């Protein structure tokens, strides 16, 4: 089939004849679109005849070129002639006037002040949703506490296994490496002062009070917070949450309570595990600096007491409620559409991590004030 081409000629009657030949498709249009349009537009007062007798193929893209020529208002007429019947039938599907007729109103332009106002109002609405959710969750947890038989324990155990037991390998790996890295980074400078034995104090204090709970919580946020948001978000998209509502079952009591209970049980255990593995990581590193296990752990034992352990341990309950609550809330807020579940999971992890750091800071402040 011939390559598309065009030729322009002006006849004696003052008419411009534009001859199109060959295969009019998307590939040809790339070369023809601008020159053909210019050839027609350059003489708006001259009648134009488009002779398409040489066109041996024309698809939707080719038809678009002809519609483009036909749809613009001109002083003199423009006519397409001799297009073969199948291509002519295709061209006749399009009415240039109908193309211009868009029933959708143009999107309203919002002044910047109004946009800021709307954004602020949205923040206010979000805040109200969150406060209501906190209230509903608290009521649901209180109800679960006073009526334990109403809790879906099978769901609790299922979530506990996935959020807790299944997270052991990753918590072990991160905590072990954290202990090793901390030990190594601090042992090198401390060795210069002959104080490498105090690495045990540093690791024990930082793991128990701060890093054990926080790292475990961040891992939980990434694994379970995102999983809750995605799981509940998918249920929302599939109308399962609507089904619960019309069955008279409260989604918070049915979906959120078991997840928060499971996390509240698992987070402290994982943190305890993280503390121990982190200490072992530190101890392994210190072996290479000539400090045996027994010395390391005896030093650590002197450095920390029950108060330090409890200071870290208390936080884990709050972290668990936070992660479970935010993950479920983001899931319940999932909108419609394919990307909505992904968005919810992302928002869950980001909100969890921000809130974890903020709450951890508040705890640090409170412990300082209380001298705990």
């Amino acid at each position: 089939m011939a390559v598309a081409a065009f030729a322009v000629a002006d006849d004696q009657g003052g008419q411009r004849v534009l001859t199109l030949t060959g295969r009019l498709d998307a590939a040809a249009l790339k070369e023809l679109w601008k020159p053909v349009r210019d050839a027609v537009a350059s003489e708006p007062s001259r009648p134009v005849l488009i002779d398409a007798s040489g066109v041996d193929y024309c698809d939707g893209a080719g038809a678009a070129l002809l519609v483009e020529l036909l749809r613009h208002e001109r002083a003199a007429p423009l006519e397409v002639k001799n297009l073969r019947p199948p291509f002519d039938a295709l061209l006749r599907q399009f009415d240039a006037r109908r193309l211009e007729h868009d029933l959708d109103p143009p999107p309203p332009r919002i002044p910047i002040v109004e946009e800021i106002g709307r954004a602020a109002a949205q923040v206010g609405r979000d805040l109200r949703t969150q406060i209501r959710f906190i209230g509903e969750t608290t009521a649901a947890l209180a109800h679960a506490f006073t009526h334990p038989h109403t809790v879906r324990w099978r769901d609790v155990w299922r979530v506990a296994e996935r959020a807790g037991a299944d997270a052991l390998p990753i918590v072990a790996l991160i905590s072990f490496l954290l202990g090793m890295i901390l030990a190594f980074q601090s042992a090198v400078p401390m060795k210069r002062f002959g104080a490498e034995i105090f690495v045990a104090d540093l690791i024990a204090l930082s793991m128990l009070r701060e890093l054990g709970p926080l790292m475990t919580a961040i891992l939980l946020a990434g694994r379970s917070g995102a999983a809750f948001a995605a799981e509940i978000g998918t249920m929302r998209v599939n109308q399962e949450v609507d089904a619960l509502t019309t069955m008279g079952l409260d989604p918070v009591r049915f979906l959120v309570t078991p997840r928060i209970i499971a996390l509240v049980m698992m987070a402290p255990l994982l943190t305890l595990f993280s503390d121990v593995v982190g200490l072992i990581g530190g101890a392994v590193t210190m072996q290479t600096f000539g400090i045996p296990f027994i010395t390391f752990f005896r030093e650590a034992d002197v450095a920390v007491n029950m108060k330090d352990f409890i200071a870290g341990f208390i936080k884990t309950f709050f972290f668990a409620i936070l992660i479970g609550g935010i993950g479920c809330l983001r899931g319940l807020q999932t909108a419609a559409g394919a990307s909505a579940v992904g968005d919810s999971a992302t928002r869950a992890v980001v909100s969890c991590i921000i809130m974890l750091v903020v709450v951890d800071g508040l705890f640090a402040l409170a412990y300082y004030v209380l001298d705990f």
Partner: protein
Amino acid sequence: MGTTTGAKGEPIIRVIGLDTGYDGVPLLTDVNFEVRRGEVFGILGGSGSGKSTILKNMIGLLPPIRGKVLFGDDDIATAEGDARERILSRFGVMYQSGALFGSMTLLENVRLPLETATSLPDDAIDLIARMKLELVGLEAFTGHLPAELSGGMQKRAGIARAMALDPEILFLDEPSSGLDPITAASLDATIRRLAEATGVTFVMVTHDLASIYTATDRVILIHKKARGIIAEGDPRRLRDESEDPRVRSFFRREPEPIAA
């Protein structure tokens, strides 16, 4: 089902002066109709006409902009606490996707409303759930997960779950969407059989003409441009007797002219 307390044919749901839409922007205005006890009632209309939005108003998932949806004297839009529970206990809903809980077997799905709303012994719950599945012909699939079933079976399971607590009214959202004609016809037959055998009132949202003629007794037709109901009555009579070109074009499956 044993919960029919009123006479057949009396109004069971009354929709009065309903303005409905999203974010305060009305899609339909001043919609009025009633559903009568024991009938299979159809809410019809083209895509995007607002029929599913009316359904959401009726089942309390979306508050109307204005107007009432009365179950007896209770308005579902404003009812709270016990009054709301009372209304919710009167109906079941089958959603377009079936909305079965993916992590539970069919039997567990049907057992769930029974477990939460009643304090029956476990073996009674089990038997009732199996009977509901038998009503829709799924007694042999109790241990299957929803994902292991075809679309038509999932919808039938959705009906079984919606019927678990013997509701007076069953709402069906687009029951035949996504089904082949034979499966859709068998679902229509199931609906018709259940309506006659159990006395349950069915309210179905649909645009499937075959379903409308086979399954429904009375319908309303919603039109997007008219922003409300343009016809009400027996669908067969509307098809044969209506003078309104919009009604004729819907029931005779003729395209409406594109607006210039």
